[in-house]
């Protein structure tokens, strides 16, 4: 566990010392708040629905940018060889990097707190569901980071990692979207059981469930399993690489 903390600190430090992370953060905040703040209207609903409806899409776009370099850069620069020689288990390395990315995203999200504060100042905002939705966002972002990290570990090219992450995250996001599911079932090309299965895999479906203000043990277990699966797969890929040279 201590090893994870050491890696986490190192990664966090690298985030906060890198100007790219700030540019990334400012861009993400700017885009997100630009669209989300349109909900600030006189006599409009005092809720954060629009903000949380927009967040998954923003994360689909921005998370691959954050995760593409996590392993691919290490491989390209050759520092992965050094990293692998550390007396640290691979899963601790993976966990450290994963937690650092999630904490960085949570920090960026924390800067959006001004919006609910504004809404709360001018209307009766129901705070507990908002906090629940922030928790859901962190879990949702975590699941995306896990997927992005996995793809980053499979290649040394950051662009390929970015593209693979972008496509897979977009797909995962879309699979939870009812309209697309309806299109898939309506077309008759895909069997109904398969559509149901992939719909059950999409984190978006579980994000919607928590973000409305209900914390369900099923959703938490799902996110834990989803992240666990991709992080374990990440560790497997790295271990395989370590053993195959």
């Amino acid at each position, binding site marked *: 566990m201590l090893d994870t903390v050491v890696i986490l600190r190192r990664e966090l430090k690298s985030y906060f010392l890198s100007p790219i992370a700030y540019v990334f953060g400012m861009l993400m905040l700017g885009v997100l708040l630009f669209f989300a703040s349109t909900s600030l209207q*006189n006599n409009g609903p005092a809720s954060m629905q629009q903000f949380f409806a927009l967040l998954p899409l923003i994360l689909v776009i921005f998370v691959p940018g954050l995760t593409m370099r996590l392993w691919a850069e290490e491989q390209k620069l050759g520092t992965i060889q050094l990293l692998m020689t550390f007396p640290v288990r691979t899963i601790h390395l993976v966990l450290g990097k994963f937690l650092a990315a999630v904490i960085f995203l949570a920090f960026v999200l924390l800067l959006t707190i001004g919006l609910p504060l504004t809404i709360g100042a001018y209307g009766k905002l129901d705070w*507990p569901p908002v906090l629940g939705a922030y928790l859901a966002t962190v879990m949702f972002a975590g699941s995306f980071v896990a997927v992005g990290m996995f793809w980053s570990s499979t290649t040394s090219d950051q662009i390929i990692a970015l593209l693979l992450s972008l496509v897979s995250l977009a797909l995962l996001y879309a699979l939870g979207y009812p309209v697309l599911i309806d299109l898939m079932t309506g077309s008759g090309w895909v069997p109904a059981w398969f559509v149901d299965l992939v719909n059950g895999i999409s984190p978006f479906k579980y994000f919607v469930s928590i973000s409305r203000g209900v914390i369900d043990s099923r959703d938490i*277990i799902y996110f834990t399993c989803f992240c666990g699966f991709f992080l*374990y797969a990440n560790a*497997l890929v790295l271990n395989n690489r370590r053993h195959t040279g």
Partner: protein
Amino acid sequence: MTHVKNGRPLGLRTMAGGVLAVVCHMFLLALVLGQVVYLASRNRTRWDLTSEKIWSLTESTQTLVDKLDKQLLVEAYFSPGEDLPVTMRQTRSVLDNFLDELVQLGNGRVVVQRFDPNSDKAISDRCTRLGVKPVDVRGSSATSISVDRHWQGLRIKYGGSKQKVLGQVAPSSSPQAELLITPAIKEVVTTEKYKFGFMEWPIQEAGQPQGIGWSKLRTVEDIARRFEFQNLKSEDAPLIPEEIETLFLFRPKELSDRQKYVIDQFVVRGGTLVVFADASEYRIGQQRAFSNVPVALDAATAETKFLDQLNSYGVDWQPKLLADMAPEAHRPRDILRQPFEYFAIQTATVFGNQARHVPYPYFFHAVATDWSKAADRFARNAEGEVDEAVAKRFRETHGSGIPSDAFMFTTFKNVGRGPGFYWPTWVGLRRKAGGVLDLPAGITGTVHLQTSPGVLVEDPPRMLNPVGFGDPRAQTQELRKFVAKLNERSQAEPRQQAPLMCEVRGKFASFFAGSERPKRPSEIAEAEARAAAAARAGDDTSDTGQGEGQENEEPVVGPPSPVTDAGGNEIPAAAPEAELVAQGERDGRIIMIGDSDFIRDDLVGGNYARLGGPYSTMGGAFFNNLLQWLAKDSDLVALQSRQLTTRTLQLVDDPAPGTDPRVVEEAVNAKTAALRGVNIVLPCLLLGAFGLMVFMIRRGQKKTFLESLS
């Protein structure tokens, strides 16, 4: 890239084996985790974080399920979820969640059986027989057109005997699912309907033979399937049957002594009397001119007064009209969407003609706030200064507009106000001079609803017309004058809270004790006929030479001979009646409500909404809650009192009356732009500043390090 191990390049087979191992591992892990998620979804625990618990079943469903002593079987006739169109898919998910939660709550007492009518002809035939209706959706592709049949109905069975079928259920949200299904469960588990008696005196309008009464709410499906109403207003006015525990009087008027006696004996014998009282009958005429039609409470031939009768039980009904001057009391619940709840006039706005609420203090509601906290506001003198001594007294004497803790008021306390009353009257508890309670021995009393301390009490005016009949400008001026006059009068009136609803209960003494009971019309008719017959018989005997004073020598044997009228027709003997009970042995109860208009058919039906009101939006909820309260049936209260708080942004304060709408719009735009700007720019700037700070610190550290080297 060449992979090397122990100085030798790795073969393709070794690398492929490694990848295969990873893939196998991942596949196995996916299977295990899939199972974990599946099991987790079977045994769920959930926490609803919303303040109003909008995603959870209410206490109503919990209570109903707890009371089940037999098995509740829910047959769900659902076609497969994956075949459903997107619109139904969402409703299915809501329904599935609801049924899952219901089974969990039931703890073995609720069983859900699912059937797919599309898979078996016998099941679809059963659906048709039961009344479960399918939805046919047309689908088309490049080569074919098809009609897909989707089913989503429920049959709820309890104990194998009672059942309720919901032909099509498509709730869009969890609360809606509960609103549809829980009352249906309640219906099947309820063994018999609670009976109410009523007497009503409808308003006869020209061209309406039936008159405007109070039947609309009694026949609402949700009420009619749980309660039974029996009209007991008979020409012959017999005593109220014993099976009736509660009797409603809807705006009583022209009461005969006999009717008063029936009411008296009902409460003395332990019945519950509910009176929707009005001091006057206002009619809504052309251009909503409100004219007063004088109403006599007592019939012309009556020797007793109904007010005295009520007074003898401890009720003080003052047939005066009330107007609440506190703005929060006469402001509609939803001023934007339902300005016509009380009184609105059409006003030209930039968006076209819109109904705008105007203050009319004769239409108002009890406010669920503690008025003692607003003592300073009501203790101001003519100069606008607070009179501390008066304020202190008000803090001690004033209270909430809804002081009652009875469950029927839960809904209203949740929304912070009672139902809107229209031209209400004073119905309180009997008091001595100085305001001390003066209830008869053994009687207790409670005030359930009351006005704000800013109430005006007056004799019902002949005409109440706040806006006159002129053009919009003239109407506005007229309204200003009307309100100014009321304000002027309000300054001179004593500050007090007028009771709007009260209750007395206990063992009542009869108002008619010590006097002869008033006879029924049939008894009077019989007595008159007997007298006439006797007179005729007297005439006959005089004709045959039998003079007055001569005794009938033959004794009467057997039942008395039937009395006949002059034509020889037999006059039916009036049914014998129970003797007068002078002192009650069981607790009776009288509930007085100072308005009957708010549940009247035309007002709850929204007949005047398009004209700008009045429209009683909460009268139905009040009546429903009252019925449940009287029937001591609190099962559905939690469900019906579930109220979502209106959460809207109020970026600028309400403009003062008469403010130019363009100025208001400009202010709103400026505020919106400023808030949006701050919300977008500030977080980005903060992050940038944080980065800059880190950069400066790092540069400083680097500089120090380099200096230390040199």
